[in-house]
């Protein structure tokens, strides 16, 4: 096993996982807020923030799907070594999926939960080139009035919102920063607002 597989985990797992989760929870509770995390390094091109999310949330109980943008032997081995999560071959089997937006599509293939268990839905970790609190206009639970986030799309998130209480939940990662968008958020194109 080469060195890159064994390294990049948390040096103090219970504490770093606690910090990482706190950031992830704050992000999910306040769509559009951008938070910094640290302490994990997965093989390229995985961002530090995405690596932290994998370590915080994934384990043998959570099938992971790696989008073509991120799938590699090195990453598969890293995920297996550090989390024990099974890497699955189909989007529809995944509890978590990681990749760039275009590579994660089509969204319709992921699990969106059932009417009785809407929580049994996938969470997507979307790697971004940039993360800014501007762009699409966000309203809904967790947001005082409005928030902004440079989402890669608007229509897709609107369609996802229309499924509520079913649907997908998203993290967006860039470098050491992350933001989130739960299915409950209403997304509007800024052009429509002004």
């Amino acid at each position, binding site marked *: 096993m080469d060195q890159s597989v064994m390294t990049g985990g948390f040096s103090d*797992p*219970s504490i770093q996982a606690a910090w990482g989760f706190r950031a992830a929870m704050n992000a*999910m509770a*306040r769509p559009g807020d951008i938070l910094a995390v640290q302490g994990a390094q997965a093989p390229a091109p995985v961002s530090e923030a995405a690596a932290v999310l994998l370590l915080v949330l994934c384990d043998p109980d*959570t099938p992971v799907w790696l989008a073509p943008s991120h799938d590699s032997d090195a990453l598969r081995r890293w995920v297996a070594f550090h989390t024990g999560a099974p890497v699955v071959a189909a989007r529809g089997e995944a509890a978590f999926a990681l990749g760039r937006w275009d590579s994660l599509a089509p969204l319709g293939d992921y699990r969106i939960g059932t009417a009785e268990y809407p*929580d049994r839905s996938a969470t997507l970790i979307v790697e971004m080139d940039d993360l800014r609190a501007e762009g699409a206009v966000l309203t809904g*639970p967790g947001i005082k009035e409005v928030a902004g986030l440079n989402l890669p799309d608007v229509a897709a998130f609107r369609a996802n919102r229309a499924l509520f*209480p079913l649907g997908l939940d998203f993290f967006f990662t860039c470098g050491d920063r992350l933001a989130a968008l*739960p299915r409950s958020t209403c997304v509007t194109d800024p052009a429509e607002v002004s």
Partner: protein
Amino acid sequence: MTDYNFAYLDEQTKRMIRRAILKALAVPGHQVPFASREMPMPYGWGTGGVQVSAACLVPEDRLKVIDQGADDTTNAVSIRRFFEKTAGVATTGRTSEATLIQTRHRIPEEPLTRDQILVYQVPIPEPLRFLEPRETETRKMHALEEYGLVHVKLYEDIARHGQIATSYAYPVKVEGRYVMDPSPIPKFDNPKLESEAIQLFGAGREQRIHALPPHCQVVSLDFEDHPFEASKADHDCDLCGSGTSYLDEVIVDDAGGRMFVCSDTDYCETRRGAGHLGRLAATRQEDAA
């Protein structure tokens, strides 16, 4: 520190709880099943709240634990000590200083901020449970948004008593979708469910977690001609004089004499510290001297 993992639970258990919390925040008011563990305190004594707190705590947290609004009730003391021992976190009685507050049956009087998390201990998370005992049925009712039964129950109250006779664990509707049980807080606290803070509800024995993100719409169920009313005892606090806080009634002598005091002990002490005095405050200070 101790031989236990940080905050007692093993990492895999925490991950499982953390995933449930994220889904609960994404679908406000929906009860997410989680594989609750057997804790070293009994079911019904806050195991759900303890597991949720354990999954959220970071070493920098300042923890406050209240039961019935008070920091020094025995079970609150016991849970606070548990986390002092297993997570090594600082603790406080001051609402404003706390970053994570675990509570049973009350929401602090002082409005919470965005830097705080409120964790509720929940005995029965299902608002429909006493109308329909079967989980298989209530789950369907939530799925179909079939909440007629709750309204019928509230309406029967009105028919019998002239008003809605539910005074605590008063059901709410979250973001126009899920009917949720806010845990047995007095209905006086219901308006405070719309908060700046993240609110997490943990039911250990019943294996459910539900959540309210900040600024989430939470409406207490009512009827146009019988609107919801957040009622309390029609008195001021006899110690701090507050006319707006929730009061406990204390029997003080054999003749049935009674006094009313804030249930939120920190709120009351802070007010007295600032010089506010109630009807019996002077007598009490003599006693203490």
